[in-house]
């Protein structure tokens, strides 16, 4: 970022500043730039150019240091102790897209798995891509049950923005007509295999309220003209998405929103720029800009704009607000409610069931589908029949496949017989994990830690988050209902499981600057503006007032596009 000072001197004022370039920041950049605002995107991490900076995308399995691109334990322990907690993030194929824990520490009062990507594109390069709309079952839940505060918006407010986002990013999926999982603007769905189709008919035949559908995923299956114009093509079923995709087939900021924003001529993208605080102007009662530290030189500059979008991810946007104190905001920026940094939520998972499958030995597949089946929420839908002893619900994600060459190491026998057997695929197996909604709880919180500093000398976070009784009751049902469905499908050796889960491991952390109707109990208003400083918008996971049980990124994108539209209109009206 050597040119930042020059850049600041020559042109340090923009129409809009966006902090972060991930899923939300990329959307803010695209929408603001397309609507004519000179937009500066500040990204704390390094540059990652689409295709050119995907170093392992053409590496075959045998060309890695170790098989499966695995990383030796010593290296994990010294650099990636927390980032590796997923079991899949830190490999030689992908580790360059994650931060090093020794450079970016945080403290855990209770276990919290905070998986981060500091780079242009953020976690949009490595996300899970499952994309589901919320419904009013979700938006009305807090008000209906008297939990936390009411969402200040409903599905009708967001529906057109879901349309807008889905058309641009490309979401493949199957319309199901479920009121609690609204259909979107889908590209053609991926296929379920024969074992999954069997389970679908068995489950839907046995349980009236349950549906098995193919995952709705942000992969192009039939590119639009607009997608082709950006150089994006249909999914090639490599299933190595988290290395980056040369086909631009799944949605990432790098291949999509940032390119579109750049095409307007209104975008300035500045990597290696760590935003350390928001500058507040007490006379105008507006934010005037941000303070930025050069990640390489440590130099500090101030950059100014008429509107600021915080899209740094839920915990880091809250960190930035907590680190932005002034006479007006002694307890953190816009924190008159005291809710900043509280109500941390995730989706709790790693509980479900798996089974062996007899039959279909003469059937196989070609291609590696980057997707699985999805079983939408079927608990607590508002009727007596689906009511359970916990609030909210969960959905399942899973898949069926044939066993590979790894399958015989624990069995008896070796030599020619074993080798001959491994030439053919093994039996089919099937499994699923539930993703459950976590209730907002103000005691689940993050706080600023000035004693532990990161590689830039900045304060870090202390995280204190745990599951509550509602989640623990839900987890029992998440396991037993999975067992019930695999048994109803006639599968063999059905095994329920529950694995060690730490909040954050779902990588759906959210809730730290919630939206609400009342400035006394929430940080953001119905348009994602900070109640107490209207030209600052927070549109990433921090904004979430509750968690739903569906993957959240699509909703962050819709909220961001809606907020950008509001910001541009408000600027034109002279309100900001």
């Amino acid at each position, binding site marked *: 970022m050597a040119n930042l000072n020059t850049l600041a001197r020559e042109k340090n004022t923009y129409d809009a500043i966006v902090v972060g370039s991930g899923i939300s920041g990329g959307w803010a950049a695209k929408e603001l730039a397309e609507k004519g605002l000179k937009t500066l995107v500040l990204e704390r991490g390094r540059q990652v150019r689409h295709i050119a900076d995907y170093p392992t995308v*053409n590496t*075959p*399995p*045998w060309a890695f*240091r*170790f*098989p*499966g691109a*695995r990383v*030796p*334990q*010593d*290296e994990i322990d*010294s650099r990636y102790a927390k980032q590796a907690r997923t079991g899949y993030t830190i490999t030689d194929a992908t580790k360059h897209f994650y931060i090093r824990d020794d450079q970016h520490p945080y403290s855990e009062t209770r276990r919290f798995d905070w998986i981060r990507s500091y780079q242009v594109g953020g976690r949009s390069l490595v996300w899970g891509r499952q994309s589901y709309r919320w419904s009013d079952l979700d938006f009305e839940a807090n008000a209906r049950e008297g939990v936390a505060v009411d969402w200040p918006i409903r599905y009708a407010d967001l529906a057109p923005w879901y349309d807008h986002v889905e058309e641009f990013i490309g979401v493949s999926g199957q319309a199901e007509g479920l009121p609690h999982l609204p259909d979107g603007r889908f590209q053609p769905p*991926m*296929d*379920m*295999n*024969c074992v999954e*189709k069997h389970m679908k008919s068995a489950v839907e035949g046995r349980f009236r309220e349950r549906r098995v559908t193919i995952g709705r995923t942000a992969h192009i299956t039939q590119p639009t003209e607009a997608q082709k114009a950006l150089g994006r093509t249909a999914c*090639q*079923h*490599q299933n190595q998405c988290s290395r980056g995709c040369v086909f631009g087939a799944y949605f990432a900021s790098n291949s999509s929103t940032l390119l579109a924003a750049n095409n307007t001529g209104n975008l300035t993208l500045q990597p290696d720029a760590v935003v350390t605080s928001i500058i507040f102007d007490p006379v105008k009662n507006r934010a005037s800009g941000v303070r930025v530290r050069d990640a*390489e030189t440590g130099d500090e500059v101030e950059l100014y704009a008429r509107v600021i979008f915080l899209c740094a991810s839920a915990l880091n946007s809250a960190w930035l607000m907590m680190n932005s104190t002034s006479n007006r905001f002694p307890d953190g920026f816009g924190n008159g409610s005291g809710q900043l940094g509280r109500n941390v939520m995730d989706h709790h998972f790693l509980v479900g069931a798996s089974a062996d499958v007899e039959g279909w*030995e*003469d*059937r*196989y*597949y*070609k*291609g*590696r*589908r980057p997707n699985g089946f999805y079983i939408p929420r079927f608990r607590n839908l508002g009727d007596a029949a689906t009511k359970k002893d916990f609030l909210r619900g969960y959905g399942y994600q899973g898949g069926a496949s*044939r066993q*590979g*060459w*790894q399958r*015989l*190491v*624990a*069995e*008896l*026998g*070796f*030599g*020619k017989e*074993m*080798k*001959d057997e*491994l*030439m*053919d*695929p*093994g039996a089919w197996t099937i499994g699923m994990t539930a993703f459950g909604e976590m209730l907002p709880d103000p005691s689940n919180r993050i706080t600023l830690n000035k004693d532990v500093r990161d590689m830039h000398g900045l304060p870090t976070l202390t995280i204190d988050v745990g599951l509550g009784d509602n989640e623990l009751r839900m987890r029992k049902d998440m396991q037993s209902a999975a067992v019930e469905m695999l048994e109803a499908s006639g599968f063999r050796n059905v095994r329920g499981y529950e694995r060690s889960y730490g909040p954050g491991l779902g990588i759906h952390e959210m809730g730290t600057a919630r939206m609400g109707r009342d400035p006394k109990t929430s940080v953001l208003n119905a348009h994602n503006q900070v109640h107490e400083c209207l030209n600052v918008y927070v549109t990433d996971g921090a904004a979430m007032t509750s968690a739903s049980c569906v993957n959240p990124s699509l909703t962050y994108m819709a909220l961001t596009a809606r907020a950008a539209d509001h910001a541009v209109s408000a600027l034109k009206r002279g309100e900001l």
Partner: protein
Amino acid sequence: MKETHPMTEDLIHRRAVLGRAASLLGGALSMSAVAGVLAGCAASPSPVADASPAGDPATARSAAIAVIADLILPRTDTPGAIDVGVPAFIERMMADYYRPEERRAFMAGLDRVDTDARATLGRPFLALSSGEQTALLERYDREAYDWARAGGEGATPFFRTMKELTTLGYFTSETGASKVLKYDPIPGAYEACIPYADVGRAWST
């Protein structure tokens, strides 16, 4: 920011440790057996053997690893473990990937094979016929199987590690993954449910 590779220094150290541990095996061994194995190994040089003068006991360790790997996945109408370089792969994993305690356990297992051969048949493992070697390994295979069935508590048996590494090295080698099994880097479509005969072999990935 420039990074130094953390493994480099460690790697040299670990190879030295492996060599020293190998010397514990020591003693008499059939040089003809070793020569035979190394001839088969020629296409895939062993880092340990390369670093050792001819006849060094470390060579015996390399030879035993190669013999066992090839008994686990022998040459049939497709290449065997030695053909695709599995012995060198196992040595590289032991030198560069495994931790010292895991490496020690593996070496102890390898030692036990030779000790058992001498105790029961009066000859070093490498001097046994393939049939005798197989019979000895079947004992370890049974132990590993029983251990897994009992829940897999405690240290992983040597033969389980050997079987895992042989399978892993074989099917993630270029030949094993793309010539023996099928590999398709860019499949294009996903065909969800087709006759197995249309594929004809297991996919490696």
